Structures are given as structure tokens and as C-alpha cells.
């Protein structure tokens, strides 16, 4: 018996089947639940209930504001760090970059727990007693703490690619540090900013582990909101998930998409 000729293309069949079963079909199921009522009849009631409920909409807006603050703080801290490292002539700058990535490999929840213990310790001091109930503050700090490497890495890789001769040319032509920064560094690092922003903004809108553990469960972000609804109303939960899905894809599209070559978790380091 002769086996049919082996084709390299057939290798993608298992993966394609996997994607259909565990990504495409589940997305369709969400869509189905979002537009049906409890009797499984087609209805817009979840849609209307969602968009006519001010508390739901304000929770979403609140969550987006927290994410924006987190993203801006991450950018403000990460940009100088990435620039200093990328422009540094140190031979061992790789080691310093490694130090920024290393905490990412400790379990996420254990890391948040470590920060929680630090906050508890700080709150014992009289001057810092306000920390005890500063739920939003602690949540934002926790998110910055957790997602900072996601911002540093893409910025660093983009800045590293900027041709050194551009800086020399700028200096030769009499550009001072400000001019060089605004006309060379900043425009050329925009792709890095975009992927960094996507990498931080989306998880900080949805990863409710940080807000639950540091915000005494008093800070409700979209992710938490979905999971709360999911407990008793699959249809509404699916509707919010669908809205979030659209937000995610629109913002990815706006920021120019995900750059796959920037390996976001630093496994290639």
C-alpha cells in the first residue's frame, strides 16, 4: 500500500481545526447568547438593557479612565528608562534590561500579593495610614507595577533600531537635545509607543486580579463586571463581553495593530 504523498500544507489542518472549535465557535456562542433571552429566543433586550443603564455605562467609562491613567503613568516611567537603556553605551545594558523583565516570570498573582503585603506594611505607618482605603490608588499602582515591562520592551526594541547616524546628523546640523528628541527620537519611537500602549491599556481594563486583590474588591473594572454578571446571567455577561470585544478590536485597529515581531514577554531575550 502506498501512502498518499505527504504535503507540508496538511500540517496546518490540526491547528485550523483547533482554531475553529475553540476560537471561532466560542465567539459565535457568545454572539448567540448576547442576542437571546432566557428562553433562547432572539431578542435585543440585553442590548437595550445594556445601553439604557447608566450604571453599566458609567462602570465602563470608569474602567476606561483607570486604564488610561495606568497607561499614561507606564509610558511616563517606561519611556525614559527605555531611552536611557537604548542609548547607553554600557556593554552590560542587556543585563539591566533583563532585570526589568525578570519579575514578569514570577507568578502574576504572587507578585500582586507581594505588593499587597508591601502596602499593608506601609499603611501601618501613621503618615501613610490613608493607604488603607486608597483603593483606586493601590489598584493603579498595582497595574503599573505589573504591566510596566510590557511598555518598556517594545519601546526599547524600537529605540534600538533608530540609526545612530541620525543623532550625529542632528548634532552636526546644530540641533540641541530638545530638537533632536522631538524631531528624531519621538517620531521614530511611535510604533513602540503604540504597541506598548496596546499591551498595557487592554489588560488594565480587563485583568481584575489586581483590582480585586489591591482595591479591596471595591474597584470594578470591565473584566470584573463581566465575571460578576456571568455568575447569574449568561446572556447579559455575553453582551458585555461582546461590547468589550468590539472595544478591543477597534482600539487595536486604531493603534495600528499588534506587532508580532515584538515579542512582548521577552522570551527571546
Amino acid at each position, binding site marked *: 500500500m502506498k501512502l498518499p*504523498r*505527504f504535503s*507540508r*500544507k496538511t*500540517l*496546518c*489542518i*490540526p*491547528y*485550523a481545526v*483547533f*482554531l475553529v472549535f*475553540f*476560537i*471561532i*465557535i*466560542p*465567539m459565535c*456562542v*457568545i454572539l448567540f*447568547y448576547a442576542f437571546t433571552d432566557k428562553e433562547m429566543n432572539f431578542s435585543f433586550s440585553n442590548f437595550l438593557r445594556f445601553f439604557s443603564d447608566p450604571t453599566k455605562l458609567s462602570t465602563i467609562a470608569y474602567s476606561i479612565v483607570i486604564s488610561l491613567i495606568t497607561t499614561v503613568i507606564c509610558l511616563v*516611567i517606561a519611556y525614559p*528608562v527605555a531611552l*536611557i*537603556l537604548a542609548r547607553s553605551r554600557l556593554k552590560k545594558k542587556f543585563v539591566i534590561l533583563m532585570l526589568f523583565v525578570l*519579575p514578569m*516570570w*514570577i507568578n*502574576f*498573582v*504572587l*507578585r500582586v*500579593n*507581594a505588593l*499587597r*503585603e*508591601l502596602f*499593608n*506594611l506601609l499603611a501601618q505607618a501613621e503618615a501613610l495610614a490613608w493607604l488603607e482605603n486608597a483603593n483606586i490608588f493601590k489598584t493603579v499602582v498595582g497595574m503599573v*507595577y505589573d504591566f*510596566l515591562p510590557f511598555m518598556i520592551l517594545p519601546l526599547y526594541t524600537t529605540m534600538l533600531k533608530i540609526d545612530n547616524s541620525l543623532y550625529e546628523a542632528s548634532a552636526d546640523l546644530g540641533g540641541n537635545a530638545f530638537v533632536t528628541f522631538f524631531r528624531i527620537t519621538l517620531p521614530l519611537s511611535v510604533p513602540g509607543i503604540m504597541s506598548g500602549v496596546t499591551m498595557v491599556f487592554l*489588560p488594565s481594563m*480587563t485583568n*481584575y*486580579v489586581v483590582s*480585586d486583590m489591591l482595591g479591596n474588591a471595591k474597584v470594578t473594572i470591565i*473584566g470584573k463586571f*463581566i*465575571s460578576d454578571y456571568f455568575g447569574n446571567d*449568561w446572556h447579559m455577561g*455575553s453582551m458585555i*463581553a461582546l461590547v468589550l*470585544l468590539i472595544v478591543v*478590536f477597534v482600539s487595536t485597529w486604531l493603534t495600528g495593530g*499588534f506587532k*508580532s515581531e515584538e*515579542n512582548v*514577554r521577552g*522570551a*527571546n531575550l
Partner: protein
Amino acid sequence: MNKQLLMKCLKAFFVGLVLLVLYAPILLLAVYSFDKTDMIGRFEGFSFTHYAALFQNSKVLGMIGNTFLLAFLAAVLSTVLGTAGALGMFYCKKRTKTAIHAVSQIPVINAEIVTALSLAVTFVAVGLGKSYFTLLIGHMVICTPFVVLSVMPKLKQMDNSLYEAALDLGASPFKALLQVVLPQIIPGVISGFMLAVTLSLDDYIVTMYTRPSGFETISTYVYNATTKGNAHTAVTLASLWALTTIIFVVIVLFVLISNLTGRKKEADR
């Protein structure tokens, strides 16, 4: 000249400060994991109590074993599926390739809660319920796309004529793939595997939604211990400091060793 030196100091100070904040919580736990008591704030005396408690608590040991076994299984399966998928996609027609790639990107950019929820709803709707199988699938959904993303660039860099040469010299397509193509993309496969391991180890949300009841990983255990604070967890919380410290030390050692051996290989070239 003095101004330059000042700038240098400022830069070093800034980078150092960010690193200090990044490591402060972990170092705090590392110090207090050797304390006699389970109170952070005053160091009462050096002891291994918390480490002993960690290794005597069968529940904690069980969940650590669960986490690593799950990460290993998910990473192996994801690596096989993802590598085969990337290979197949690479040789497919452009349109097929774009389609598979687009679907494959969904779990990468999508919010984890939406992925988790869509999977959970689907599993329950088709009667699979929640079992170790669904948990494994859940982890594969978040890991495999990253394996594909790691392998793809290596395929693009590959010298395609070597495969043709192998066929001309009489190798079967399968043998040529295994002995000629695979060795060229192996760095991508390895980094994909590592990425899959870290993603699985870190995951909380997908685990939470797809796990069978009573199954605990480090993430779910720590999350429950800190947010639902039961009376019996006081001792366990302190043993989690020990766990954090151990994981931290293991990661530092791993990075050191892999860097040293990596440097050596580069030097040999």
C-alpha cells in the same frame, strides 16, 4: 563636562529607582519569609518555619504540582500544535495563510476574560462541562498562538533551498522537514515553548473559568487565600512568602545559567 557627569548620575539614579520599586515587594517577602512570626513589620528572628510549613502542607504542595504539570502539558501540546500549524501555514496559499493567521491573533489581542468566558459557555453548552480536559484546552488556546508567533519569523528567515536540495538528494518530504527544516526553526520552537510555560504558569482567568471544581493552581489558590481571607489562611499566607522567594531564586538562577551558556555558544561561533 561636569554637566555630562551629572546627567549620567541622574539617568543611573532614575533607572535604579524604578528597579528598586519593581523589586521592593519581592525583596520584602524574601526577607520576611525567614522570620519566625507571620507578621510583616518587625523581624523577630531568623527561622525556616515558613519553608517547613510550605513543604508540610499537602494542599499547597498539591497545587504547586498541579500548576507545573498543567504548564508542562499545555506547553508541550501547544508547541507541537503551534509548530505544525506555523509550518503548514507557511507553505499554504497566501489567502489561507492570512485567514488562519487572523484567527490565530484573536486570543493574543483579545481580553483574557472574553476568551475564558466564551470557552466556558461553549464547554457547558455542548455538555463537556468542566474537566481537566477543558482546562488543558483553555491553556492551549492562550499558549498556542504565541508559539506560532515565535516560530513564524524563523520560518521567514530560513533558507528554503536547503529543503529543495534534500528532496533532490532523495529525502522524503517528511524526512526533509524533520531533518532540514526543523533544525533551522528550533530556536523559535524553544522560545515558543518557554513562552507557553510562562503564560500557563501565570494564568488566572482562563483557569478560573475552565477548571474542574476543587482543582487549584498557584494563581487560584493565592487569589482565594488573599481575597476570601479564611481563618486558616494566616499561616498559609506566610508560607506563600516562602513560595514567592523560592520561585524568585529559581528564576534568577535559571536566567543566570541560560545567559552564561548562551554567551558561551555565541563565543564559540
